[in-house]
């Protein structure tokens, strides 16, 4: 009887399985397993710490010591790492201040007002019949402002609207004799040009403006010709969906949506190379990538985000493997179209515009990782014989086949943090494998940028856990509409917010986004990365290229634990008649421990006994 250990060092976790082998009966009984965060980059000597921790946690459970172990089998890790980056490809710029398109919580009055911008202290200089939009800076009290406006109106001046710096719109309107639209919380009020024609529009509560969000509406107000109307179109577009807005027309004023030159990607393949600029969008990038398969290398224009990211991945890999930078090749990229909320340059109320962006994940593969170094060091530390055994893909298949209800021909999708790996085994035990860029980290990046939260840790939580809305101090509503009540009042900082339900805690998301919007962004990010990658992977590894030719897909790896990724993939693949589901290694481990299990299982057929050798 021998104790055999399988060790799988992954990009994010290090997993261990320990089996008791009865050689005569060719029987292996798994007695314990362990998991720990991978320390350092996969394939470096820094991994030892993680391996030891993982091993210790496994041995502790069954009260074994290093001395009881006969052999440690460590996987020939696939030298694959990935990284992600984002490139914004459009920007909205307001040259001269021509619009204020923000949504204060409480604008005042209802309707559309047109007039010339005048500061409230200058109203006394105006003559009866003048049409005004009054600008009220923060140091003017709302009651004084109301008195001044009322007086002006009595003397025959037409005050048609107002723009206020503080949160005072309703207070002012309530004290006026006539209803006018008032917009408040305009932070940079001093930047508003004076004596210019301006229009203020406020919709009824729950409604949206319809004059200033329409190019012809603006053209009517400002008497624009067809050429000018073209120019103000971005203004109108950016105001759609607002409850209130101000548009000020200055002769030189303009709002532009510019395309930012975002750098080029050069994809090298066996059949030649293809050059494509990032701002042509994700579809075009992916198209030219597919045309040129198999990819030998990808280069990015230096001085751009993309170029920087690709260089960084290569550099990391070259350090890890001690290989020359020129030998490191990028084997795959995944491009995803996305939107980034960006502050409008030149805006007066911190307006944001949704800009187009392209998210990119890249994956590098080298010939070999220095696994032997790790094996030697581990042997020295534990005093147990350590061998490098088996290719990762084969081991993963071996382990995944222990999932009840599976059989060959069969595909595993290993979805981790940095890359999506796939392997297929045919009935004749032929194994095909592939590695794709884009996995869990890419999803976090997309969530982070699309929601504009600027906090990767929070984005990671949004990815991992379901959401709920805190509807009262005593209850929350889940994504599916069901309600949960609490005995104790919830913290006031959670009130009214969308929260992430982690295992132990509720984490508020500090944005105005609705629960639906956040869950939609989350799901789309997972779709864009994992569902697309699963299709890409299957098309590449299935010898016939036809997804219908396989029956079983088993999902393993960290991202397969996710509460919705397996269902999303399963739904998509069911359209091809494929049975796809989350792996359940050895019927108890779930999607974890596939490679470690495979390493122990393969001991019998390849290595024979250590003691014999």
């Amino acid at each position, binding site marked *: 009887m021998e104790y055999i250990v399988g060790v799988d060092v992954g990009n994010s976790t290090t997993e261990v399985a320990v089996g008791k082998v009865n050689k005569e009966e060719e029987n292996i009984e798994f007695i314990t397993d362990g998991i720990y965060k991978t320390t350092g980059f996969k394939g470096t000597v820094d991994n030892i710490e993680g391996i030891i921790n993982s091993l210790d946690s496994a041995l502790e459970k069954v009260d074994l010591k290093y001395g009881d172990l006969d052999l440690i089998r460590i996987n020939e890790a696939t030298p694959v790492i990935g990284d992600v980056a984002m490139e914004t490809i459009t920007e909205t710029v307001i040259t001269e201040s021509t619009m204020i398109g923000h949504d204060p919580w409480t604008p005042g009055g209802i309707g559309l007002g047109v007039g010339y911008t005048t500061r409230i202290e200058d109203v006394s200089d105006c003559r009866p019949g003048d049409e005004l939009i009054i600008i009220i800076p923060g140091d003017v009290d709302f009651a004084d402002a109301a008195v001044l406006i009322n007086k002006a109106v009595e003397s025959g001046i037409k005050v048609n609207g107002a723009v206020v710096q503080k949160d005072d719109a309703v207070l002012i309107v309530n004290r006026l004799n006539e209803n006018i639209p008032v917009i408040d919380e305009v932070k940079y009020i001093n930047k508003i040009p004076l004596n210019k024609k301006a229009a203020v529009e406020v919709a009824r509560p729950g409604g949206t403006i319809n004059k200033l969000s329409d190019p012809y509406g603006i053209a009517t107000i400002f008497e624009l010709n067809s050429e000018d109307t073209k120019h103000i179109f971005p203004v109108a577009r950016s105001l759609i969906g607002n409850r209130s807005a101000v548009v000020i027309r200055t002769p030189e004023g303009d709002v532009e949506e510019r395309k930012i030159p975002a750098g080029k990607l050069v994809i090298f393949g066996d059949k030649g190379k293809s050059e494509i600029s990032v701002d042509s969008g994700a579809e075009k990038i992916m198209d030219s990538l597919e045309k040129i398969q198999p990819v030998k290398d990808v280069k990015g224009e230096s001085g751009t985000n993309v170029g920087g990211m690709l260089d960084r991945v290569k550099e990391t890999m070259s350090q890890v493997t001690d290989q020359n930078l020129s030998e490191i090749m990028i084997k795959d990229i995944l491009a995803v179209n996305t939107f980034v909320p960006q502050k409008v340059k030149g805006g007066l109320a911190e307006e944001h515009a949704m800009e187009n962006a392209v998210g990119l994940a890249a994956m590098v593969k080298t010939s070999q990782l220095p696994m032997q170094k790790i094996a030697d060091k581990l042997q020295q530390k534990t005093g147990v014989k350590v061998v490098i055994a088996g290719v990762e893909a084969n081991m993963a298949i071996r382990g995944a086949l222990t999932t009840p209800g599976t059989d060959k021909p069969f595909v595993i999708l290993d979805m981790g943090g940095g890359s999506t790996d796939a392997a297929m085994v045919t009935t004749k035990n032929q194994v095909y494998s592939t590695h794709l860029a884009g996995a869990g980290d890419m999803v976090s990046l997309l969530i982070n940028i699309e929601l504009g939260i600027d906090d990767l840790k929070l984005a990671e939580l949004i990815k991992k856990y379901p959401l709920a809305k805190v509807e009262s*101090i*005593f209850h929350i509503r889940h994504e599916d509409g069901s309600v949960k009540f609490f005995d104790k009042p919830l913290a006031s900082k959670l009130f009214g*917010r969308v929260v992430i339900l982690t295992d132990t805690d509720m984490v508020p998301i500090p944005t105005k986004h609705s629960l639906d919007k956040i869950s939609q962004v989350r799901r789309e990010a997972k779709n864009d990365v994992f569902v697309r990658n699963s299709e890409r992977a299957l098309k590449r590894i299935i010898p016939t290229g036809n997804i219908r030719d396989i029956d079983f897909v088993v999902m393993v790896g960290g991202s397969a634990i996710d509460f919705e990724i397996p269902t999303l993939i399963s739904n998509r693949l069911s359209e091809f008649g494929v049975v796809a589901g989350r792996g359940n290694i050895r019927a108890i481990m779930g999607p974890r421990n596939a490679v470690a299990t495979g390493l122990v299982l393969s001991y019998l057929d390849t290595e024979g006994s250590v003691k014999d050798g």
Partner: protein
Amino acid sequence: MGDHREKPSVYIAVEDNYKNSVLLDYLCYGLEEEGIPFKMMDNSAENLYSLAHQAAQASRLNVSLALGENNRVLIHHKKLEPDQPFFEKEINKEFQAKVIASNAARLVKGIPIKDIPLEVDNKNKSVSDILTDLDNFQSISKETENKKMSSSAKEIDEKRIKELTNYICKKLKDIEKNNI
């Protein structure tokens, strides 16, 4: 349960010596800006918590505001324990009262509450803007210095602000010099 003939409103309860205070005005402004009706309530409880709690019980919107000793403001909700209000804070600026009141309104509306800023937002002012402001401020504070101050606390406050102002002024001038 509140009286059903009453209009649904947030109840405001204040201790006697705050009945005519500016802070009370600002609480009202905050609710008015959010469009939530409010009503004053007669004060009959021994401490601010039970005062706020009683007001919340009486409100048909289940929410009350209370103002009392040390400029302490409470937001209370009908279903909370008397000594565990939804929010409480001692404030030192009038505009903070307005923000807290709008948070009470937000509790009624079911939207997230705002943070209470310590200062009025002065973002986006350039260095020279701030310098002009500071100059104005200095001349104002000089004027007030000549007048007799009503409370000693205010005097300390003014003094401290002046010290800080001078310090910031110097710093900013240095920055501007370096920039040029």
